C-alpha cells in the first residue's frame, strides 16, 4: 500500500526532477503532466532526465492556462493513468512542480494509511467563503466565460457585465451543488475512481469546461457527490495574497516551514537552494524538526496582506500616499492642541508635561520657528525647526512629527499668530484633541508695554485670525474632539475644564489634579478690554469681562464647556 503523486509542471524542470526523485525514492509512483505550452525539446530533455526511474510516468499533455479547463483535464488524465497502472494505491496526491515535501514521505504514507477512507480536499459552498478574487463567487458557476482573464481582461469583464445585466444564466446540473477550495487535494482511490468513472462524467465535464477557474471547483464539487468522508482541508500549505496569488517561499522561510504541520508546501522559489537541500535530504529525521506552530505562518502572511491593504496608520512615504479620507487614520496617534492656555497661565507647558507625562511643545507653527519641547532645534527623526521647511508642507511636518514620536503623546500650543493652513487638517483628524480658550491672546497684549495704538492693531488682527480658526473647527465635517471656552467662562472655574482635558489625555491613572497651573494676574484686564472698545476695537471672543469686577465667588454656578464634536 502506498500513495501516488500527480505533479503538474510547467517550469523549473530541474526542481521538478529533484522532487520527483524524492517521491520515487520513498516508493511513491509519480505521474507528471507537462503543460503543452512547454517547447518539445524542453519536454523531451525532462523526460530523458527522469528515464532511469521506472515509476515516473508522463501523462497526455494539455494546454494549461490559469483559470481554464486545461488544468482539470490534465489532472484527470494523470489520475486515470495513475489508478490504471498502480492498482495498489490507496491515495493520490495532486501537487505542482513548485511543491516541496516538508515532512519525510514515510510520515505522509503512515498518516494516510491510518485514514484509508478520508479524502483531504478543501471544499466549501460559495456562499460561505470570502476567497474569491474579482467578486465572482457563485457566478463562476452560472455565467459564460469565453474570454481569457489573463490576456483579455477587458472583454472578460465586459462580457460578465453584459450577462449580469441581461440576466443570462447557465443551468447547474441537478445532481451537484457547487463547492470550491484549494486545487491541491489528496483523494482516496475509491473517490477518485468514482469521479473519473461516473456515468454522468461527460455531462459534468461539459458543464465544468465553461466554469470560471474549474480547477478550484471540479474535484471539490464532485468529491461531495462520491466521498463518504471528506476532511475539508488541504494537506498542502499554500498561502494567498490579497489578489489571490500564492505567496512564494524562500530560503529565509526555512525555520518557519519547519514548524508547519503540513506535509507539502507551495510555492517554493526555484532558486531556494537551501529549502530544497534541507527538505529533500533523506537525513532529515523527525526529531530534527521543531514542534509544529502553523499559527506563526498564518500570522506572517496575514500581516503581509494587512500591510498591503491597510498599511501603517499615519505613515506617508514613497509607496504609501493615501488619498484624502483613505488614510486609515490621518496621523499615527492621538495628540492635543492647546490654544490660549499658555497665554492665560504662567508656565503652562511644564505644568502640562508634569500633569500628563506627555511631550509638550510650544507653538509648533510659530512664525519664526517650530518651538520644540525643551528648546530643541531638531527633534525625533531629525525633523528641523525651520519655519520655511515646515510651511512648505505644514501637513507633512505634523504627520512626520507624530510618526517620529509614535508611542509618546504629543501636545503643542497653537495661536492666532501661527501658520493658519494646518488647522484644516488638524480639525479633520479624529486623533486630534483641540482645546481653545478664545480671546486669551489678549492677555499678553494686556501685559505688554507696547504703545496702545500698536496693541489695538494687533488685537484686531488676532481676533480676526482666531475667529476664522473657530469657524474652521466648528464646520460640520470636523472629526477632532473640539472644546471651546470663552476666556470669561474659563476663568470662572478653570480646574474643571483642565481636569476634563487631562483625563481625556489619559496617560496617567485618572485622579484629581494635585497642582493647578498659576494664572496670570488679571487685575485691570477688564479695563484693558474696555480701552480697546473705547478705541473702536470690540474684542468679543473672550466673553464678558466687567470693567470693575466684583470679587468672584469660587462657588459661582459652573457652566459646562460645550463639546462641538464628540
Amino acid at each position, binding site marked *: 500500500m502506498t500513495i501516488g503523486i500527480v505533479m503538474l509542471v510547467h517550469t523549473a524542470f530541474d526542481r521538478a526532477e529533484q522532487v520527483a526523485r524524492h517521491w520515487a525514492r520513498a516508493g511513491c509512483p509519480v505521474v507528471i503532466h507537462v503543460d503543452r505550452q512547454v517547447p518539445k525539446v524542453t519536454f523531451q530533455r525532462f523526460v530523458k532526465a527522469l528515464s532511469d526511474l521506472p515509476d515516473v510516468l508522463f501523462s497526455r499533455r494539455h494546454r494549461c492556462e490559469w483559470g481554464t479547463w486545461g488544468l482539470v483535464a490534465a489532472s484527470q488524465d494523470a489520475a486515470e493513468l495513475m489508478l490504471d497502472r498502480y492498482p495498489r494505491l490507496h491515495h493520490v496526491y495532486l501537487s505542482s512542480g513548485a511543491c516541496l515535501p516538508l515532512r519525510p514521505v514515510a510520515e505522509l504514507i503512515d498518516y494516510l494509511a491510518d485514514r484509508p477512507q478520508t479524502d483531504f480536499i478543501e471544499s466549501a459552498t460559495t456562499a460561505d467563503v470570502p476567497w474569491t478574487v474579482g467578486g465572482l463567487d457563485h457566478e463562476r458557476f452560472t455565467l459564460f466565460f469565453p474570454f481569457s482573464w489573463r490576456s483579455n481582461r477587458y472583454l472578460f469583464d465586459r462580457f460578465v457585465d453584459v450577462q449580469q445585466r441581461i440576466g443570462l444564466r447557465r443551468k447547474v446540473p441537478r445532481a451537484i451543488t457547487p463547492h470550491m477550495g484549494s486545487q491541491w487535494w489528496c483523494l482516496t482511490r475509491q473517490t477518485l475512481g468514482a469521479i473519473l468513472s461516473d456515468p454522468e462524467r461527460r455531462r459534468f465535464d461539459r458543464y465544468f469546461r465553461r466554469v470560471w477557474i474549474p480547477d478550484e471547483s471540479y474535484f471539490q464539487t464532485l468529491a461531495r457527490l462520491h466521498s463518504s468522508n471528506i476532511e475539508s482541508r488541504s494537506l498542502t500549505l499554500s498561502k494567498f*495574497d*490579497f*489578489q489571490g*496569488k500564492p*505567496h*512564494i517561499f*524562500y*530560503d*529565509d522561510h526555512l525555520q518557519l516551514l519547519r514548524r508547519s504541520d503540513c506535509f507539502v508546501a507551495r510555492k517554493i*522559489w526555484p*532558486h531556494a537552494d537551501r529549502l530544497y537541500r534541507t527538505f529533500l535530504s533523506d537525513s532529515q529525521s523527525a526529531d530534527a524538526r521543531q514542534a509544529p506552530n502553523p499559527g506563526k505562518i498564518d500570522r*506572517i*502572511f496575514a*500581516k*503581509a*496582506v494587512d*500591510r*498591503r*491593504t*491597510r*498599511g*501603517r496608520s499615519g*505613515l*506617508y*512615504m*514613497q*509607496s*504609501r*500616499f*493615501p*488619498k484624502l479620507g*483613505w*488614510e*486609515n487614520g490621518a496621523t499615527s496617534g492621538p495628540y492635543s492642541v492647546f490654544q490660549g492656555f499658555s497665554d492665560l497661565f504662567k508656565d503652562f507647558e511644564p505644568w502640562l508635561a508634569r500633569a500628563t507625562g506627555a511631550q509638550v511643545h510650544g507653538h509648533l507653527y510659530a512664525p519664526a520657528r517650530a518651538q520644540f519641547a525643551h528648546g*530643541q532645534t*531638531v*527633534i*525625533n*527623526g*531629525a*525633523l*528641523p525647526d*525651520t519655519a*520655511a*521647511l515646515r510651511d*512648505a*508642507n505644514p501637513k*507633512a*511636518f505634523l504627520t*512626520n512629527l507624530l*510618526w*517620529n514620536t509614535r508611542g509618546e503623546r504629543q501636545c503643542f500650543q497653537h495661536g492666532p499668530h501661527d501658520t493658519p493652513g494646518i488647522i484644516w487638517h488638524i480639525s479633520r483628524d479624529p486623533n486630534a484633541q483641540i482645546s481653545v480658550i478664545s480671546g486669551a491672546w489678549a492677555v499678553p497684549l494686556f501685559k505688554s508695554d507696547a504703545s496702545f495704538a500698536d496693541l489695538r492693531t494687533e488685537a484686531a488682527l488676532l481676533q480676526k485670525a482666531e475667529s476664522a480658526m473657530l469657524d474652521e473647527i466648528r464646520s460640520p465635517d470636523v472629526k477632532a474632539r473640539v472644546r471651546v471656552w470663552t476666556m470669561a467662562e474659563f476663568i470662572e472655574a478653570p480646574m474643571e475644564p483642565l481636569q476634563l482635558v487631562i483625563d481625556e489625555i489619559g496617560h496617567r491613572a485618572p485622579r484629581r489634579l494635585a497642582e493647578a497651573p498659576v494664572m496670570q494676574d488679571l487685575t485691570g484686564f477688564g479695563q484693558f478690554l474696555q480701552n480697546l472698545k473705547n478705541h473702536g476695537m470690540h474684542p468679543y471672543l473672550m466673553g464678558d469681562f466687567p470693567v470693575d469686577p466684583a470679587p468672584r465667588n469660587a462657588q459661582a454656578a459652573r457652566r459646562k464647556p460645550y463639546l462641538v464634536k464628540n
Partner: protein
Amino acid sequence: MRKSRQLKPVANRTDRIRPSDLLVFCTARNEGIRLPYFLKYYRDMGVNHFFFVDNDSTDGSLDYLSRQEDVSVWATHGSYKRSRFGMDWINGLLRKYAHGHWALTVDPDEFFLYPFCDTRPLRALTDWLDASTIKSFSAMLLDMYPKGRIDAQPYVAGQNPLDIASWFDAGNYAISRNNRFGNLWIQGGPRARAFFADTPERAPALNKIPLVKWHRRYAYVSSTHMLLPRGLNLVYDEWGGEKASGLLLHTKFLDTFGQKAAEELKRRQHYAGSTEYLAYHARIQHDPDLWCKWSEKYINWRQLEILGLMSKGNWA
C-alpha cells in the same frame, strides 16, 4: 535618440547577455575610487551585466571598466547638462539593450536596498515583481552622512562607503503629488535641513524609480525621478495600503565630496545652474557636519522598514 550618437563604444560585451539577465545602467565621471566597491555590491546582489557611460573621466575609470568581464562601457565627451544630466545617453542604451530585462539605473554613489536583500538575491525580487505583474519599483534616495566633518575619514577604493557615511535622517521627508506625471515628489533629509532651510522648494528631489522591467517604449523623463508612460510612476498606493519599496542609500557625502563640489561648480553641468552645488559649497566651507543628535545610525533594511522609509508591501 540623437544624443546617444555621442556615445563611443569602448568595450561592448552585450553579446554575452542572456535573456533573463539583470542589468545595471550607470553614468560616471571621475568615480574611479568608488567603482570597485560599486561593482562588488551589485555583483553580490546578482546583477549579471553592467552598462557604463563614462563622461570624460580623467582618473582611469574608463580603463578600469573596460577590463571588467561583465561590463560594457561607452565613452562620451558630450555635455552632461545638454544630455539632460546623462539621461539621454542612458535612455538610448536602455532602449537598445534593456528591452525585456529588469534594469536598475543608479549612480556610482547609490546603493540599492530592497526588502529581504540580506537573505534573497535581486532575482527573488524581480521574479516576485514579474509574478505580481508589477513593472516598476520605487526606491527613495536616502542621503547617508558621517558623524563629524564629512572630510574627516578618507575613503579608500574597495571600502564600503557605509562604514563611513552610516547615518541618516529617519523622519524628515515631505511628499506631494506631481499631477502631470502622476509621481510623488519627495524632498527633505539632511540636504534640505542643512543646505535649503530657507529655500525648501529648491531642495533636491528624493523620489526615484530605479528598477524597471524595461520596454523599448519606456523612457526616463528626469533623472530616475519619473518615467513615461505615466502608469510606471504609480509605485505608491492611494487607498491606505503600502506597496513594496526599497531605498537607494546615497553615499555622496564622503571626503571626496568637497573636491567634487568644487569641480562641479567649475563645470556648471548640474541641475538648475548647479544651485545645489553652490549651496553645498557655501555650507561645507564653514560647517561640514550633517550629523545631529537625532540622526539615526544604519543597521539593516529591517530598521529602515520599521522606520517607514521603505516597505515590504505584501512580499513576505
